[in-house]
Structures are given as structure tokens and as C-alpha cells.
């Protein structure tokens, strides 16, 4: 097992900078998820770790060893791809044992290791089948088995669940997490799905435009997003963002002037008056205030659309031109197209500089 250390990673394609100065120190046995929108450089970073892309500049260490110039096969990694990347002309057994065969591992050992891996991923009855005869979930298990068989120092996953249906995705998500904990292999996992990132990772690295935005534990990142991008990307439904001005008395007034919030005592005293963006998570807007919580501030809204989700309801409304979402207990949700009072929990607000997008607490 091993630590992985990315030091000042850059990837350039001519004039285009795909990855810019990314540094990550991933601990032994840690499960790190690289997350971000399409084109943010997360897959390129993973491919550089795998050795499938050259590192334009920067250093990569796996364990103690710098591996910038080491061939993919010699980096002691295993990779699982989005579309499984199984060899269609080989059986499941041959697919799983192919890497070992090329390493000239004795046949008897290959058989033992493949059978053991097949047992772990529940593929023992399918070893003689070709990938074409398997379902999507089974194929992804073969890809997992192929990775396990190599007994690598690091697992790399490149959006492995994207081709699966929603139900299977949840199941496989759980299985991969469990497997990683059982095997204790350092894992780097790429996804664009923040739910996957939140539910699987020990730590999440959020990327945008090739730049690392924040590298943190899921809950700390959720509660303390470094900037507006992270705040909007992590969490579903996304955080509500209200641009506006803060005056000397710490009264926040949104751009439309329709919404004011007294934040005196809820913001650091050092903060100056000026332009800011107020962030409120949907679950921090309540439908009632039965306990007369002093943090809660009432606001009058017109309920636009209500989406009942079972355990809770999503209420969509507007403050000025800004669309907002509240996540309410179903019994507190108002009727659509009616006026209603909602309560904002002032103790849970986030505050960002409008100019830089950075969290004021940074």
C-alpha cells in the first residue's frame, strides 16, 4: 500500500492548460474522489497518475518512488474505466488474468489469484463467459476483479458507474466503498457526480478549469466551502446564492432590495461593508418555527412549485430574479401559487466576497 503525492501538476496541450498547479497529498489507504464538471481536468489528472498522459511539469510519487518516467504497467496501479474496457474476445477469466500473464506469473498462481478475486466480486460462475454475454453491472465487476487481481498499490477509477442505471449505481457505489475498506488500497476515484463524491470519499478534491478549488473531507467541505464554486457544486439541491450588499450595521440587502437580513452577531466583526454573496443551503430554510428558534428569520414568499420527494418536499420560489430552493418537511410545505412564510436559519448561512467568490472565513 502507498501514499500518492502530486506536486505542482501541470498539463498543457499547446496553448491550452488542462491542469494547473494541482498538488495533492493522498494518504495510505485513503479514498480520494476528484470531482468537478466536464472539462475541469479531473480525468486528465487521473490519467497522468496512471501514466496514460505525460506530465507537462510537476512530480508524482507513488510510495517513496518518483514515477514520472515509469511506464503505466510498472507503476503498480490498477485502473477501472467508465466503459469497462474489457477485452471482448477473451473470457472473464482471461480478462482478469491477462495482466498477470504478461508479467509471466506462473499459471497456477494466476488461476488462484483470479479465482480469489472472482470470489470477492461474485463472479465465480461467470469465469468462462465472454463480456458480451454479461450485464452492465457484471461487466463492471469483471473490471473490478481485473483491478483486484493485480494486487496494486493504488486503485484508479475513472467514472466507473456512469454507464449503470440509477439503482445499480447506488449498489455498486456501496460495494466499491466496502471493497476499498476491506482491501485497504489507496484509491483515487474520478466522478462528476457530487453525490458519489460525498458518499464514498474520505476526502474530496473539487476541480474547476484545471485548478484545484478545495481538498477536504466531505462534511467539512459541505459546511465550509472555500468558494462560491464549491458551495454551488457540493450539495443537492445546490446552495441558494443571493448577491447583495452589507452595510455597516451588518444588515444584508439583496440586489433587488426586497430581501433584508440582520446578520449582526452572525458575521465576524472584522468584516467590512460592501458587496457579498449570501449562501443558504435549502435545508436551512424552514417551513415553520414552532420552537421559536431565535436564529430563524421569517421571510414572505410566493410558492412557485412544490416537488414532494417523500421524506421531504422541495419548494421553489423567487427572491427578486433569483430562483431559490427550500427543502422542507412535507407537512410544512405550502400549496403551490400561495403566499407563505419561510424561516431562514441565520446561524447556518455562508458568506462570500462578491469580487473573488472566496468564503469570508478563509
Amino acid at each position, binding site marked *: 500500500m502507498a501514499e500518492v503525492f502530486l506536486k505542482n501538476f501541470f498539463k498543457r496541450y499547446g496553448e491550452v492548460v488542462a491542469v494547473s498547479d494541482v498538488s495533492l497529498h493522498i494518504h495510505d489507504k485513503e479514498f480520494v474522489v476528484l470531482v468537478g464538471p466536464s472539462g475541469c481536468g479531473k480525468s486528465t489528472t487521473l490519467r497522468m497518475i496512471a501514466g496514460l498522459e505525460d506530465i507537462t511539469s510537476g512530480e508524482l510519487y507513488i510510495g517513496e518512488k518518483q514515477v514520472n518516467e515509469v511506464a*503505466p504497467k510498472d507503476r503498480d496501479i490498477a485502473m477501472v*474505466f467508465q466503459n469497462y*474496457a474489457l*477485452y*471482448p474476445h477473451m473470457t472473464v477469466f482471461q480478462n482478469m488474468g491477462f495482466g498477470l500473464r504478461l508479467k509471466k506469473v506462473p499459471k497456477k498462481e494466476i488461476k488462484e489469484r483470479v479465482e480469489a478475486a472472482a470470489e470477492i466480486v461474485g463472479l465465480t460462475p461467470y469465469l468462462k463467459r465472454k463480456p458480451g454475454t454479461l450485464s452492465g453491472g457484471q461487466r463492471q465487476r469483471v473490471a473490478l476483479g481485473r483491478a483486484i487481481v493485480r494486487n496494486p498499490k493504488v486503485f484508479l477509477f475513472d467514472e466507473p458507474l456512469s454507464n449503470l442505471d440509477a439503482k445499480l449505481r447506488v449498489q455498486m457505489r456501496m460495494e466499491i466503498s466496502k471493497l476499498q475498506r476491506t482491501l485497504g488500497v489507496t484509491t483515487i476515484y474520478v466522478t462528476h457526480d457530487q453525490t458519489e463524491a460525498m458518499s464514498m470519499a474520505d476526502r474530496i478534491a473539487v476541480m474547476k478549469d484545471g485548478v484545484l478549488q478545495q481538498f477536504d473531507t466531505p462534511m467539512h467541505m459541505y459546511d465550509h466551502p472555500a468558494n462560491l464554486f464549491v458551495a454551488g457544486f457540493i450539495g443537492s439541491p445546490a446552495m441558494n446564492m443571493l448577491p447583495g450588499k452589507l452595510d455597516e450595521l451588518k444588515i444584508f440587502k439583496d440586489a433587488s432590495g426586497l430581501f433584508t437580513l440582520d446578520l449582526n452577531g452572525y458575521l465576524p466583526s472584522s468584516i467590512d461593508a460592501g458587496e457579498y454573496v449570501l449562501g443558504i443551503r435549502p435545508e436551512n430554510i424552514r417551513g415553520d418555527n414552532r420552537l421559536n428558534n431565535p436564529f430563524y428569520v421569517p421571510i414572505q414568499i410566493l410558492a412557485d412549485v412544490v416537488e414532494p420527494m417523500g421524506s421531504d418536499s422541495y419548494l421553489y420560489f423567487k427572491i427578486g430574479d433569483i430562483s431559490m430552493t427550500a427543502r422542507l418537511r412535507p407537512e410544512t410545505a405550502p400549496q403551490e401559487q400561495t403566499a407563505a412564510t419561510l424561516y431562514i436559519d441565520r446561524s447556518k448561512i455562508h458568506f462570500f466576497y462578491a469580487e473573488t467568490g472566496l468564503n469570508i472565513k478563509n
Partner: protein
Amino acid sequence: MKKFLFYILLGLAAFAFLYPFIWMVSASLSEERSITDVSLWPVALTFDHYIKLFENIPIAGSFVNSVFVATIVTFGVLVFSSMAGYALARHRFKGRNLLFYFLLFTMTLPFQLTLIPNYILMVQFGWTNSFAALIFPGLLNAFAILLFRQHFLSIPQDLIDAARIDGCNEWRILFQILWPVSVPTLITVGIITFMTTWNDVLWPIIVIREEHLMTMPQLVTLFAVGGRSMGQIGMKLASATLLALPIIIAYLIFQKHFIQSMAASGQKE
């Protein structure tokens, strides 16, 4: 009723295409006097033309030469064109697109244009009157490279990456991973190359003089138009039948792929 008429029409069209071939075979098995008949069946069945043909020219040897040349060229085209196609599809290097467009450009040049320069090259290399002159110029083929490039572009990059992580070098990736998933393209390129090489007459006539090195189409053409058939149509038809036979047999075996490859070569134009 409409369908019935349609089939009648199709049947007539098929007959119009098939008739010359059937007549050729039947006439080659008929007595010389009866060849002018338009019968579909041999008149006074005889194998004389074939016997005389084998007595007059080394047709069996030329058949072996043709098989040898067409097989080597086909195998060479599959290996070298797939290598070039793979490099153009999956490797990043300076001038890759320029090289590809240049390759496409060469496809627009008629064979006749490169005939003389190629011949001079063969003379310079000292390859005239040898199989080398028949084999080497055919080993790379722009159309085959194009087909392989397009096919390899359709294969997910992940498959190649997985092979690389498993420890494959470029040779293994191409021949152990990509070839097995490219069988239809290999068959298409194989059939087109084999047929083109088999049927080629002009180039062998230019570079081969000695009879024992001649390919079958070359020998049969020289025999049919060169006076050695002694004006006997039956012998000419027998030689033409023998020439067509391997392609007909190949067609029966690879019928499905033949049609696909013809469709592919149609796209070329």
C-alpha cells in the same frame, strides 16, 4: 402480385448477369464446333480444352505464383496498413494530419501515373523479373490505411489504455487487442486486397518476362491474345474459367463479407 413481378424482374436481371459466366463454363466444356451455340449446357461434353491448355502453358505453376503473390501481399497489407492506421488514429505526433491528408491525396492519383516511376524503381532495385517486383509495391495501400484508421478511431480509447496498464506494448495492443476486435475490417481489407492483386494484369506484364514467374491472369491474358491458343476459343474460355474459379470459390466461402467489402469499396468512390 406486385412482389411477384418484382421477383420476376430481379430474376431476369440476375440471369442477365449470370448468363455470360454460365455460358463461359458450358462453352469451355463443349466441342469447338458447338461453341457458337448459345446453350446453357455443354454440347458434346469434353475436357479437351482443359487438357490442351495444361499441355500448352504452365497454368498450374502460374496458379501457385498467383496464390503466393496475392497471399503475401494481402498479409503484408493487413499488417503494415493496420500499423499505419493505428498510428494515424491513436498516436499524437507532429504532422499527423498532414500525413493523413497526403495519404488521401495519393488515393486520387490513377495507377497509370505512378506506373513508370514504379517501374524505374524496380529496375534500380534489380527486382524486375522477380516476385519482389510483384510483392513490395503492393505492401502498403492508402485505402486500407484509411479503413483501418477509421475503424480504430471507433474503438474506445479505454480499451487501449487498459491494455497499456496490463503491460501491453504497441505491438501487443495492435495484434493481440485490436486485431481480434477488428475481424470484419480485416476481412474486408483482406478480400479487396486479395482480389485486386489476383486480378492485376498490367503491372505483372510490365515487370515479369519469364513464364515460370508469371501470375495466372498475366499468363492467361498473354495466352489468349498472344496467339498461343491457336485461335481456339474453347481453350481461351477454359483458361478464363480457371482464372475466375478461385475468386468464385472465395466468394462462396466469404459471401457475406464479400458484399460488405464491396459496399466499403463503393464508399471509397
